[in-house]
């Protein structure tokens, strides 16, 4: 996909997240984008002769060993690179995919795991998250809400769309 199209998609996705009150997803993505893409580079140290007033002198020069090169790097250095536009859009899509697909599965698995027991007295009927004193944080939704047919349908539809979008972006 061309850069201009990617820019338009990223802008639109960002606007959508803000308009539906999902800034927290955007903030999470922006934090990750700000820290850059961690990469490692192989370098080789070469000796080079250099002319100075006192004659020729040897100096060490570090050069990047290109990936795929037959030369073996002498040192590996860690660095960061900014995300390119395609990676930024992919990041947004994958964050949304996690929020829609992964989180409800966590809650379903939690309940399943705690509910299934041979000890009848210890069977879990429900799980809620409530704020402690001095806290106003709201917790995850109730599992019963996540399991409503309408909610399942919405998530399935959104995940399908995100998959198609990801394919478009990576074309």
């Amino acid at each position: 996909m061309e850069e201009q199209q990617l820019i338009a998609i990223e802008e639109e996705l960002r606007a959508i997240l803000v308009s539906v009150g999902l800034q927290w997803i955007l903030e999470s993505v922006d934090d990750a984008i700000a820290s850059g893409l961690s990469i490692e580079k192989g370098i080789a140290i070469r000796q080079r002769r250099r002319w100075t007033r006192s004659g020729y002198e040897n100096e060490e020069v570090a050069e990047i060993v290109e990936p795929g090169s037959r030369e073996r790097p002498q040192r590996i250095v860690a660095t960061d690179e900014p995300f390119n536009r395609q990676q930024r859009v992919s990041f947004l899509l994958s964050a949304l995919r996690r929020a829609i697909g992964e989180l409800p599965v966590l809650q379903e698995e939690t309940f399943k795991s705690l509910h299934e027991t041979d000890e009848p007295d210890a069977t879990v009927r429900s799980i809620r998250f409530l704020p402690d004193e001095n806290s106003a944080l709201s917790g995850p939704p109730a599992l019963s809400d996540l399991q409503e047919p309408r909610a399942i349908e919405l998530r399935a539809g959104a995940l399908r769309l995100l998959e198609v979008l990801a394919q478009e972006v990576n074309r």
Partner: protein
Amino acid sequence: VTVPGDLLNELRTLLRAGAVSYTSASAASDAYEGFLFSLVIATARDCNAAVHYENVRGVRVNDLIFRTSPGRLYSTAQDYTHAIIQFGPRTPLLEAHVGVMVQGNSGVRHECDVVVLDSDEARTCRQVGASPRSRKCILAIECKYYLTSLPLGAARGFAGLKDDLGQTRVIFSANTTSDRVKKYLAHHRLTQELQAVPGSAEIVHLRSHIREAFKAHVSRHDPSFTI
């Protein structure tokens, strides 16, 4: 510029209708902490422990209530739940909690996302309104849920926590990964399970670390008990 406008419009409609049911990063973290708590319980049961749940007043419950942010073990603001774990009659009872403060060796209190500790210590804390001491904890799990890659800061914080919790077995668990974090934790020889989500191999490894913590506790008190 041509963009898949129809797709984005459709996505907007679905999101507006509530396709994402979580309203904050902390709600997402709560869900992950709950999941790891359930792994601790499932592992305890697999290790032949009897488990039941109680609230802060010692009443048995089947409707569990957890905190949305780390709090005091003895808080009565809500009827928060903990699990009672019993490995046979000769082994001291354990309790598993979600999101409570624990006092490190330095005397400073730390947030522990999921913690398993000596039940007598927990009872004393509830009676006098204090945080449990780390040396009475047999396991602490740092739960990190991120929608994107794992930031290095999360691992740095964990290294500090491990340092102050002393002999407590601590595990860093995250739903996602990052080369930087992996390297950092490996360098500091800290137990890590990254990309630990339902169905992943890391869950099996995570449960194995949890089992080791239980095994060490039980072996000290009742070596004949089979885990």
